[in-house]
C-alpha cells in the first residue's frame, strides 16, 4: 500500500531540517578594535583585582602614574612627568598638567592623593595589600606635585608606584569602589560605552585624551572568549583583531592565515617544587635526589617538543636573563638519566621509589601535558610518580596551603623584581617549599640592599647556591602568545600579561 501523503510529510520535514538559515553575520566596523581575552572583568577599576584580563580592560580607561614599557623595559611616565628621591624613603612626584577626567574633573595632586589613599586602604583595595604596605603616607605639595613616603627603603619602588591607577575623587566619592568598577571614569584613551556582562565591553575614543590619539581606532571592543580553541579560531577567522593566550598548537595555522603572532617571554617561571619542609617527609629532603630529578628531566624535549620552541630555558636559576641579579655563569642541569640513576643509587634508592606528584589541570598552558611528560621522564629513572591532577581552584588552594608536596608542578609569576621573585622561596613564606637558612639569609640581604650593583651580586650568589642545592627542579620560562590581525601595529604586551594600547595603530603599515 502506498502512503503517498506521508512521503510528502517526510520530505517537508527533511527540508525543514536541512534548510538552516545562513545570512551573512554582522561585520564589525573597520575602526573597531576587537580584543578577545579569556575572561570578562569583574570590575573595570584596575586596582580591584590583580587578574591581568581585568587590569587590561580597566587600564584603557583609567591610567597609572607610571608604566613599565615592554619595548624598552624601562619605566615611562604616564600621568606623572617624573619623580625624584628626596631620601631613601621619600619620593617627590611631579604630575602632568592640563589633563582632565572624562567627567570634567581635573587631574591634579588631589586626585593622586585620593587614589593613593584608596590604594593604601586594605578594605578598599585588599588585593594590593603587599604593595600598599610599602607606603607610609602621601601628601599634596602643590597642584602638580605630591610627596610619597615609604615605610622603609624599598628597592622595587618603581614597580609599586606603577600599580596605582588614578581615579576622579569626586566621582569616586559618589559611586564608591563597586560603582566605579561598573562605570569607570578616567583620563585614558577610551571611555566606557557599554558593558554586556560576559559578552562584550564597548569603549569609544576619548576625544579629550591628553596623549596621541590611537591611529585607526575609534572603538575598542573587549570580548571574553574562555575557550582557547575558540579564541584561536576567532582570530584566524578574522573576527578579532587581538587575541590573548593563543595555544601553541594553533600558532602556525594563525600565521598561515596571514595573522601575526606576538611572542612575549613571560614573567612566569615553571619549576617542580621539591619540598624539604619538615611537614613533608620524603626522599626530596636529600639533595642528591633533588639533583637526580633535575638530571632526569629533558628540558629541551619539553621546550622544543611540547612548546615547539615557544618557551625559554632557565639556565639553572629562577631569575630571568634581563633581570637584576641574573647569573650568566649558571647553566641548566643537563638531561642525563644515567646520572640521575647514579645519584638515586648513591642516595640509597637504587630501585627508585614511589612518590606523589601534584599538578593542575587547566591553570597553565598545556599543564596536564607537561606534567604527564615529566612523569614519564621521572619514571624512566626509577622515580615512580603517583600523578594527582588538581582542578585549578583546588590546585591554588593546595599551593598556598603548602599541600603541593612532595613534588608539585608550579609556574610562579610574581612581579618583575628579584626580591619579590626570590622571597617566594623564603622558608616562612606562605607557599614556600624550601627550608634552607642560607637561602633565607641571602633573600633578606637582597631585600635590604638599595644599591643595584650590590643587589645583583647577592642574587647571583643565591641563584648559584640554590642550583647546587637543587632547591627546585628547573623547567622553563613561559612564552605568552598573542595574535593580532595583519593590520594591527605596535601591540606588545608585558611579561606579566599586561598591555596598554599606547603606540598601537590599525591600518596602513
Amino acid at each position, binding site marked *: *500500500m*502506498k*502512503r*503517498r501523503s506521508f512521503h510528502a510529510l517526510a520530505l517537508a520535514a527533511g527540508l525543514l531540517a536541512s534548510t538552516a538559515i545562513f545570512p551573512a553575520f554582522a561585520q564589525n566596523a573597520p575602526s573597531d578594535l576587537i580584543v578577545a581575552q579569556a575572561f570578562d572583568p569583574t570590575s573595570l577599576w584596575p586596582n580591584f583585582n590583580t587578574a591581568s584580563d581585568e587590569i587590561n580592560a580597566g587600564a584603557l580607561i583609567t591610567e597609572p602614574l607610571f608604566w613599565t614599557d615592554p619595548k624598552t623595559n624601562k619605566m615611562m611616565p604616564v600621568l606623572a612627568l617624573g619623580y625624584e628621591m628626596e631620601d631613601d624613603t621619600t619620593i617627590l612626584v611631579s604630575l602632568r598638567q592640563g589633563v582632565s577626567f572624562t567627567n570634567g574633573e581635573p587631574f591634579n595632586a588631589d586626585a593622586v592623593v585620593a587614589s593613593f589613599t584608596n590604594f593604601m586602604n586594605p578594605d578598599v583595595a585588599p588585593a594590593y595589600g603587599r604593595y600598599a604596605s610599602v607606603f607610609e603616607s602621601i601628601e599634596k605639595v602643590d597642584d602638580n606635585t605630591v610627596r610619597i613616603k615609604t615605610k622603609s627603603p624599598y628597592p622595587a619602588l618603581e614597580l609599586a608606584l606603577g600599580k596605582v591607577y588614578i581615579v576622579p575623587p569626586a566621582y569616586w566619592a559618589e559611586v564608591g569602589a563597586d560603582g566605579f568598577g561598573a562605570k569607570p571614569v578616567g583620563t585614558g584613551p577610551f571611555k566606557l560605552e557599554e558593558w554586556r556582562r560576559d559578552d562584550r565591553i564597548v569603549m569609544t575614543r576619548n576625544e579629550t585624551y591628553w596623549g596621541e590619539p590611537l591611529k585607526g581606532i575609534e572603538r575598542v571592543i573587549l570580548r571574553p572568549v574562555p575557550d582557547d580553541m575558540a579564541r584561536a579560531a576567532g582570530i584566524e577567522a578574522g573576527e578579532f583583531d587581538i587575541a590573548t593566550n593563543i595555544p601553541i598548537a594553533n600558532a602556525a595555522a594563525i600565521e598561515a592565515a596571514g595573522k601575526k603572532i606576538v611572542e612575549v617571554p613571560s614573567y612566569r617561571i615553571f619549576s617542580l617544587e621539591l619540598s624539604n619542609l619538615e611537614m613533608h617527609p620524603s626522599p626530596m629532603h636529600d639533595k642528591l635526589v633533588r639533583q637526580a630529578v633535575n638530571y632526569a628531566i629533558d628540558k629541551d624535549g619539553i621546550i622544543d617538543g611540547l612548546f615547539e620552541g615557544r618557551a625559554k630555558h632557565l639556565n639553572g636559576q629562577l631569575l630571568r636573563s634581563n633581570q637584576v641579579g641574573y647569573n650568566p655563569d649558571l647553566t641548566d642541569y643537563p638531561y642525563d638519566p644515567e646520572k640521575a640513576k647514579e645519584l638515586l643509587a648513591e642516595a640509597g634508592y637504587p630501585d627508585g621509589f614511589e612518590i606523589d606528584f601534584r599538578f593542575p589541570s587547566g591553570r597553565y598552558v598545556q599543564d596536564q601535558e607537561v606534567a604527564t611528560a615529566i612523569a614519564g621522564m621521572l619514571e624512566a629513572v626509577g622515580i615512580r610518580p603517583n600523578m594527582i591532577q588538581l582542578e585549578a581552584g583546588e590546585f591554588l588552594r593546595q599551593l598556598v596551603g603548602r599541600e603541593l608536596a612532595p613534588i608539585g608542578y608550579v609556574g610562579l609569576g610574581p612581579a618583575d623584581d628579584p626580591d619579590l621573585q626570590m622571597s617566594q622561596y623564603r622558608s616562612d613564606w606562605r607557599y614556600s617549599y624550601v627550608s634552607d637558612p642560607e637561602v633565607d639569609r641571602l633573600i633578606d640581604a637582597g631585600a635590604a640592599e638599595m644599591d643595584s650593583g650590590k643587589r645583583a651580586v647577592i642574587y647571583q650568589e643565591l641563584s648559584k647556591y640554590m642550583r647546587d642545592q637543587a632547591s627546585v627542579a628547573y623547567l622553563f620560562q613561559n612564552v605568552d602568545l598573542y595574535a593580532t590581525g595583519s593590520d594591527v601595529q605596535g601591540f606588545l604586551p608585558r611579561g606579566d600579561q599586561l598591555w596598554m594600547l599606547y603606540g598601537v595603530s590599525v591600518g596602513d603599515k
Partner: protein
Amino acid sequence: MAETLLDVRNLSTAFVNGSKKVTVVDDVSFSVAPGRTLAIVGESGCGKSILSLSMIRLVPDTARTVGQILMDGEDLAAVSPQRMRQIRGGKIGMIFQEPMTSLNPIMTVGAQLSEALKLHVPELNAAERHERAVEGLRRVRLPAPEAQFHRYPHELSGGMRQRVMIAMALSCEPELLIADEPTTALDVTVQAEILALLGDLQRDTGMAVILITHDLGVVAEFADEVMVMYAGRIVERGTVGEILSDPQHPYTIGLMGSIPRFGSDDRLLAIEGTVPALSAMPPGCRFAPRCVFAVPRCAGESPVLREVTAGHAVSCHFAPLEDNL
C-alpha cells in the same frame, strides 16, 4: 440471492516474514446481498479478523492479499489507495471489537465523528457537519447527544462508546457495515441493546452487514447467513437456520456442543486439543488433528467446500456425516 453487494472471490492473505510465509486466510469466497447479514463465526486464530481487514485493505504491512473483492463492479483489491480511502468509511463502515480502545482518547466524540463526515461528505460546512454528527449520535440512541458531542471517550461507558463507534461507521451511510466482534467486550445487557440497535439501523438503511463473532448466540439473534471458519478456511456455510439446526461439519458440531445450554446438565462436548499455530498448519484438513471422525485420509487431503443442500456448503470429506460414516 437476487442481487449481490459484495462478492469476495478466492481471497487469501498471508504474512510474509523473510522466506517464511504464513497463510492466515486461505482461499475464501463468499458474497453478501444488500440488507442481509452475513455472520463469520470462528474462534481466535481462525483468520476472521484478518479477513475483515483484508476486505478494506487494512492488514499490516507484512501481509499480502490476493484474490478479488468485488463491490458494485469495482475490485477493491485493485483500486488505487486514494479510491480505497474513499470507500473506507464511505461505502464500507467498520466497527471493532474493543470500544474501549477503538476511539482516539485525545479527540472528542464530535471531532471523531466529524472527521469521517469531512472526508466523505466534503460539501458540508461546519455547522451542517455538527448537526449531522449530533443526528448520528441521536440515531444510535445515545442519551443527550448534544452533550456527548463534546465529551471524550474516557468519559463514556463501554456501551456508549460502542454506540459512538456505530454512529461513526454509519455517519456516511455505508452500503456495507463490517462489525468485528462488536459486542464481545460488553455485558450481556448492553450486548442485547447494541444488537437490537444494529438490527433497527439495518432495517432503516438497508445496508448489508458482515458480523464477525465467536458467539453462536449472537449469530442466532442477528445473522441471515453464516460462514464458519477454522484455521483460515471456511469449513461450513449456510443460512442461520441450516447452520444452527443442521450443523454438518464436525467442527460446527463440536462448537455447538461446547456451549453450555440452559437445557442440559450433561458434560459439555468440548473439542479436544487446540487450534494449530498459524506457522504450523497441518497438511490436509486443518481440523483433522482435533476431529473425532478423522481418518488417515483427512491428514493427507484437503477437503473442498461443497454444497450438501442448496446453499449449505461443508468442507469435509464425509459430509453429510450420517450418510458417509
